[in-house]
């Protein structure tokens, strides 16, 4: 399976500048940068492949239950979205598999984990954090291979943050009585956790670390298309000598998730994914008495005022929507630009887009990797087509996409009305809709005009305006003069139909605790 790296043919080389058919950027005299950085006509990048020898993928994986591998009744193939290469056969979890996993989690909960002292639980979590740091490159390569995200991101974002989450919550495990004044906390029991495919290992860390810190045991279902890093994580658990059954991992598609949600032996469900599925889970759990937290979709407004540092804002806009191919629930997918700077900003943005390198996720130069799956690519294409059909103007920088695998060029829509589907629906791809506003009041009105409320961005040099905007934006995370920053100490989660409950920080403990008072 090795040997995929080092092939220049697979590398994305940006087209020569002279081929660019982009429209002449419209820049007013005032806004013209004094020293415009011209990209030389023949800039190309030598390939900088990350070796995949570091990671060994088994041909076949079972479910990780009670510290052992459970032979799956049924398997499916998980692939590399960059070239559709089959990577491994993984289990399609059945109700019986979920039964076993929940029973193992219950047994581990009753047999010691819940009564283990907090300081001992902490040391297991610290171990896991350290092991993730030690093996981070291995995980990063696997994450990029199985998920399609650029190695630059899995190496510099996903892995450091995943390890940091375990380290952060490790420290809480023996300090829970200080977290919530005048309350007496205890664990909830067995937590069923269902995570998405956009940050497979990081989402696992967001779920597993606080659950274990609070004394719960876990049955986790990774996303259907990205199970491999979770399965490799089982080896970290082995090395950490975590007691069997404390963490159980059952792979599979939505049916496996449904079996977990419906299981009577689960005390709490934590779900990250689409709003549609989240609503279904909330309905399914009605009357069950089970605890629930939902981290759902978003359609974040990224708002740029005329006094913003434009070059920084452009970087923030690009990071906001093209980070991880736009497969980010908090992606800044609606760009609101103050009318007076609309033209220069869009020109700068289009110029910046033409320097983004789309290509092999395992190449260290790559900015935009592969779309996670054929189904997701289809969804992006469908929504982009609707944008063109409804009358928006599309811009994509010239770039040749590899023939195999799932790819979509970074896309900017201008001339977008608020009613268009591309301005209303979550695309979960590298597609930005640009809208305009005149006053701060109008920006707030438009930004909040969505059933979602996960995140928002504000770009202005005026401090009082940042705070004024931050107060009025109905969103759980507001990034001012930055975007897409994450930290284990920082609570994350949505308003309105973006879900409820917070992950991260002291607040991220609450969903995993019951209180005697």
């Amino acid at each position: 399976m090795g040997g995929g790296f080092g092939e220049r043919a697979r590398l994305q080389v940006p087209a020569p500048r002279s081929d660019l058919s982009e429209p002449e950027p419209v820049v007013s005299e005032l806004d013209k940068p004094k020293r415009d950085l011209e990209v030389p006509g023949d800039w190309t990048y030598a390939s900088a492949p990350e070796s995949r020898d570091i990671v060994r993928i088994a041909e076949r994986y079972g479910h990780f239950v009670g510290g052992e591998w459970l032979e799956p009744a049924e398997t499916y193939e998980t692939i590399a979205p960059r070239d559709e290469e089959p990577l491994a056969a993984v289990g399609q979890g059945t109700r019986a598999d979920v039964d076993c996993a929940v029973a193992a989690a219950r047994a581990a909960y009753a047999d010691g984990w819940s009564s283990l002292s907090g300081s001992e639980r902490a040391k297991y979590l610290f171990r896991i954090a350290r092991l993730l740091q030690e093996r981070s490159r291995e995980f990063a390569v696997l994450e990029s291979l199985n998920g399609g995200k650029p190695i630059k991101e899995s190496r510099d974002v996903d892995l450091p943050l995943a390890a940091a989450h375990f380290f952060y919550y490790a420290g809480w495990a023996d300090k829970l009585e200080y977290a919530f004044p005048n309350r007496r906390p205890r664990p909830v029991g067995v937590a069923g956790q269902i995570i998405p495919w956009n940050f497979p290992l990081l989402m696992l860390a967001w779920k597993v670390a606080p659950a274990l810190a609070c004394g719960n045991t876990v049955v986790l279902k990774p996303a259907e298309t990205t199970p491999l890093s979770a399965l490799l994580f089982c080896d970290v658990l082995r090395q950490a000598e975590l007691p069997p059954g404390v963490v159980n991992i059952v792979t599979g598609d939505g049916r496996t998730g449904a079996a977990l949600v419906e299981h009577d032996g689960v005390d709490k469900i934590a779900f990250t994914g689409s709003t549609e599925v989240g609503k279904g889970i909330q309905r399914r759990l009605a009357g069950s008495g089970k605890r629930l937290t939902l981290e759902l979709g978003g359609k974040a407004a990224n708002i740029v005022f005329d006094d913003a540092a434009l070059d920084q804002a452009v970087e923030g806009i690009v990071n906001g929507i093209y980070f991880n191919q736009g497969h980010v629930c908090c992606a800044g997918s609606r760009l609101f630009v103050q009318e007076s700077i609309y033209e220069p900003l869009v020109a700068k943005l289009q110029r910046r887009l033409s320097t983004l390198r789309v290509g092999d996720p395992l190449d260290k130069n790559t900015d935009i990797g592969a779309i996670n799956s054929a189904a997701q690519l289809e969804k992006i294409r469908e929504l982009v087509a609707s944008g063109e059909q409804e009358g928006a103007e599309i811009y994509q920088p010239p770039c040749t996409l590899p023939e195999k695998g799932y790819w979509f060029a970074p896309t900017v829509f201008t001339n977008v009305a608020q009613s268009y589907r591309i301005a209303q629906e979550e695309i979960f791809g590298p597609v930005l809709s640009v809208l305009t506003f005149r006053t701060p009041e109008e920006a707030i009105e438009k930004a909040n005009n969505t059933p979602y409320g996960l995140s928002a961005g504000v770009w202005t040099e005026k401090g009082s305006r940042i705070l004024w905007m931050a107060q009025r934006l109905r969103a759980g995370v507001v990034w001012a003069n930055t975007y897409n920053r994450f930290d284990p100490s920082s609570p994350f989660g949505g308003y309105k139909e973006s879900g409820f409950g917070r992950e991260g920080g002291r607040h991220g403990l609450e969903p995993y605790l019951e209180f005697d008072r």
Partner: protein
Amino acid sequence: MTRLPVRKTYKLYIGGAFPRSESGRTYEAEGQNVARASRKDVRDAVRAARAAQPGWAAATAYNRGQVLYRLAEMVEARAAEFAGLCSGREEVEGAIDRIVWYAGWADKLAQVLGGSNPVAGPYFNFTVPESTGVVAVLAPEAPPLLGLVTRLLPPLVGGNAVVAVVSEARPLAAVELAEAIATSDVPGGVVNVLTGFAAELGPWLASHMDVNAIDLCGADGDAAELERLAAENVKRVVHGAADAQSPWEVGAFLELKTVWHPIGR
């Protein structure tokens, strides 16, 4: 010669006014004809709540605290009347003290429930609690006054606007409370009081797309169906206790907003 007393008409409290039910319906409770709210009254109440909510949330915490303290003053002044409409003097005093207790929380919630977060990078990062918006409260059947106060004050002190469906069998204390609220500087529409049948009104509130959270404390019977309806717009579903008193009761009706800003020269 004995004077004939002037009787009270027991009406709804919506948007700061005391309308009859638009349906024209009443039902008999505690010897009185009490308005029996309808789906349209629910709609009007939610609309009034939505309109009033941003102003209430934007008031300073100090101001909200004082307004709620004034509500305690208004109830104290009517203590004798209230005593006749609930289990007695003790319940009234409990209700007054609970209002005072929560009034004092208004300007402390952000300090206890929020905080700053030491992120690993050059950013200032803080988390503040904010109101979730419009909250529907199904108040417990009993105690008629203290039960309502217990469920009403947590969303209220957090800056939410409330539509409350009150005790069906003992609604008079709630109507009296609405009169105290109307004279307490709580802006019209911030609290809306519906008398009637919780079983009839609950589903309309649970399924209403402009309600952000619902407290099912007083839901009798099919709470599961209400929870199912609540999923349509991902409502926050709270099973409030009829006699709880805690800032965590307030927290159930709050959102947490985290703000990041770079630090640099």
